[in-house]
């Protein structure tokens, strides 16, 4: 290519001023590369092409997004990578977004816009600007990489070892930067869940068994795991409801977890968890056989007061109610409260506190969260999506995770992730965090692909 001749001519100057100088010299070359779009050298272009071809060949014609994901995630790493960014569909989507950003910025600079138009445009601009910034940064980094590669090649040609070393180091640095920027870019494309930053209410409930209390023991262990996880992440953990079962198990419980981005981490914990073990304690331990039990975890984002409006007339409050006039003539310590929301039939009980008013407030909070959850579920049902990690649409009987004590293994079925050392996992520390971050990565990939798919229509 013509590049090398140009570089060779200005070699002396290059030695002093590395990239910047080269930059100015090769500006024309850079411009051409940028126009090419993919900003890769010829060798890498072929690579992309091959990937694309293979992928094309495997893919079923217009299959649902789920199949897409299966093939992709099976073949490639399940996280954002160069391959993902190099896919034609993703590239096209990215270009579309960049173009939209440019248009919006341009139109905002024009004066002739109505108030509402200006508002929608600026909102869109704000939405797109993080992505645009990262894109510009990555474009710049790619340019710099090209320049460095040119220097390397010229240094090799001229057998200039000093220059070569410097350039190679520079190259390594830029490559790392590009990878980081690409991940950032993909993350900025994925739409974030509007509830990601909310606090949550986590409810656990033991499943039904034909005998023994393996479910209840397991439920207690899972609740404790989440409690430990909350303290590991330095979140506040407030028990709203704790109903133990006989022999030390837990029948059902609820807790409120408050902190930063709690919902984002907890949203994939909801579902049915299955346990397989030979119990050592409790009723079932008499017979040394493998028992299977299940328990449900429900994760509810905490809505703001304005999101869910509950009319007082829609509520029925059941409390201890005395005969006669009540008030001063009765003294009771029964402060349990049950709230029934008549239109939806949702019932919430609370008897944690000694003050009846406190119990009522807690019950209202739980009720609000449940009603909100119903609203969200209705919304998501309508959105047709084949995503495996869609929150809340999994049917009740599908288990999401199995804890096998006899084989010391935890398997998450949605991403086929297996981890060892159950005891460590149940202590709610690093292992659980690892699993959650794998789930998040998988979900983000799926979300991005779905977004890209839907946008091309």
């Amino acid at each position, binding site marked *: 290519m013509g590049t090398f001749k140009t570089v060779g001519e200005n070699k002396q100057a290059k030695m002093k001023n590395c990239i910047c100088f080269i930059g100015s010299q090769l500006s024309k070359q850079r411009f051409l590369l940028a126009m090419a779009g993919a900003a890769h050298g010829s060798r890498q272009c072929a690579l992309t092409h091959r990937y694309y071809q293979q992928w094309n060949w495997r893919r079923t014609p217009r299959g649902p997004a789920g199949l897409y994901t299966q093939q992709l995630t099976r073949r490639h790493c399940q996280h954002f990578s160069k391959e993902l960014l190099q896919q034609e569909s993703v590239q096209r989507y990215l270009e579309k977004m960049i173009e939209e950003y440019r248009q919006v910025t341009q139109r905002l600079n024009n004066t002739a816009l109505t108030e509402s138009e200006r508002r929608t445009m600026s909102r869109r601009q704000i939405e797109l600007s993080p992505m645009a910034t990262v894109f510009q940064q990555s474009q710049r980094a790619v340019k710099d990489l090209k320049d460095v590669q040119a220097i390397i090649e010229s240094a090799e040609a001229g057998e200039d070892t000093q220059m070569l070393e410097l350039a190679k180091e520079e190259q390594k640095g830029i490559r790392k930067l590009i990878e980081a920027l690409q991940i950032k870019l993909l993350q900025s494309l994925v739409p974030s869940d509007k509830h990601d930053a909310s606090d949550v209410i986590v409810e656990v409930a033991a499943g039904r068994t034909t005998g023994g209390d393996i479910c209840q023991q397991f439920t207690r262990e899972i609740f404790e795991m989440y409690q430990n996880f909350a303290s590991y992440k330095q979140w506040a953990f407030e028990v709203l409801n704790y109903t133990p079962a006989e022999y030390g198990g837990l029948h059902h419980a609820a807790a409120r977890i408050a902190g930063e981005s709690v919902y984002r981490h907890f949203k994939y914990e909801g579902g049915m968890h299955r346990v397989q073990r030979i119990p050592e304690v409790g009723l079932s331990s008499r017979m040394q056989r493998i028992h299977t039990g299940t328990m449900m975890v429900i994760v509810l984002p905490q809505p703001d007061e304005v999101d869910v409006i509950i009319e007082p007339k829609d509520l029925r*409050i059941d*409390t201890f*109610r005395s005969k*006669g*006039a*009540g*008030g*001063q*003539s*009765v*003294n*009771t*310590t029964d*402060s349990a409260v049950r709230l029934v929301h008549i239109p939806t039939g949702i019932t919430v009980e609370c008897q944690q*506190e*000694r*003050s*009846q*008013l*406190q119990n*009522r407030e807690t019950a209202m909070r739980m009720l609000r969260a449940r009603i909100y959850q119903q609203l969200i579920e209705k919304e998501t049902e309508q959105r047709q999506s084949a995503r495996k990690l869609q929150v809340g649409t999994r049917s009740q009987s599908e288990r999401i995770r199995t804890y096998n004590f006899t084989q010391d293994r935890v398997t998450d079925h949605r991403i086929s992730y297996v981890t060892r050392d159950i005891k460590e996992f149940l202590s709610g520390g690093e292992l659980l965090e690892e699993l959650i971050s794998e789930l998040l990565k998988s979900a983000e990939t799926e979300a991005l692909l779905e977004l890209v798919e839907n946008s091309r229509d």
Partner: protein
Amino acid sequence: MPVQYVIEEWDFRELTLKMRPPVFIPRPETEELVGLVMEELRTRGPAQDSPASLRFLEVGCGSGAVSLSLLHHCPQCHAVAVDRSSEALDLTRENAERLGVLERLQIVQLDVLLDADSVLCQCGSVDFIVSNPPYVFAEDLPLLEPEILWYEDQRSLDGGEGGMDVIKQILCIGTRALKKNGKIFLEVDPRHPLMIQEWLRSQSDHGLEYRETHRDFTGRSRFCVLQKTAPEC
């Protein structure tokens, strides 16, 4: 013995208060009385031009539940708590100290039935009056749970015939001690709202107007709100 006396404490709204026989144990309905007052403070607050602190009077403070909740909730308020029982006032003082609101609380021992004038001297003019006065009808007293009669101070329950003795006295005090537009918040027996309105109609020159009746969580009419409309007497 009531559990609250056994463990010597109980919760009232978000506070934990010490309990000691024979001082009256707060009932759950009274938590709502405090809620009513708080709601009034909330809606009234922004409208006021001067951020001067509010003063209120509580008649029959018992363990101090009502006054202390309000003082805890509203750092600018000052309170005058009145009770005829020295044990009640001691307990109120103790609870106030524990909650750190004692500086804003003035504790006065007197019996409003006997000594209404002293009340006026002591508390001056107040922005509102709140009370959970003894309102059980004298004829109903023997029908109460024995545990209540054995351990709790009967004087904190007995409202005389018709249960209105202390209530009427509070209204008279309100006529003179309240600032213009000041309100009176009462917890009463479900039969009282009508009785109070009737009694007001039979009296003259009280300058009070009956505003609202609120129901408690069991649906019984439990709370009366009155307002002073006439200028200072």
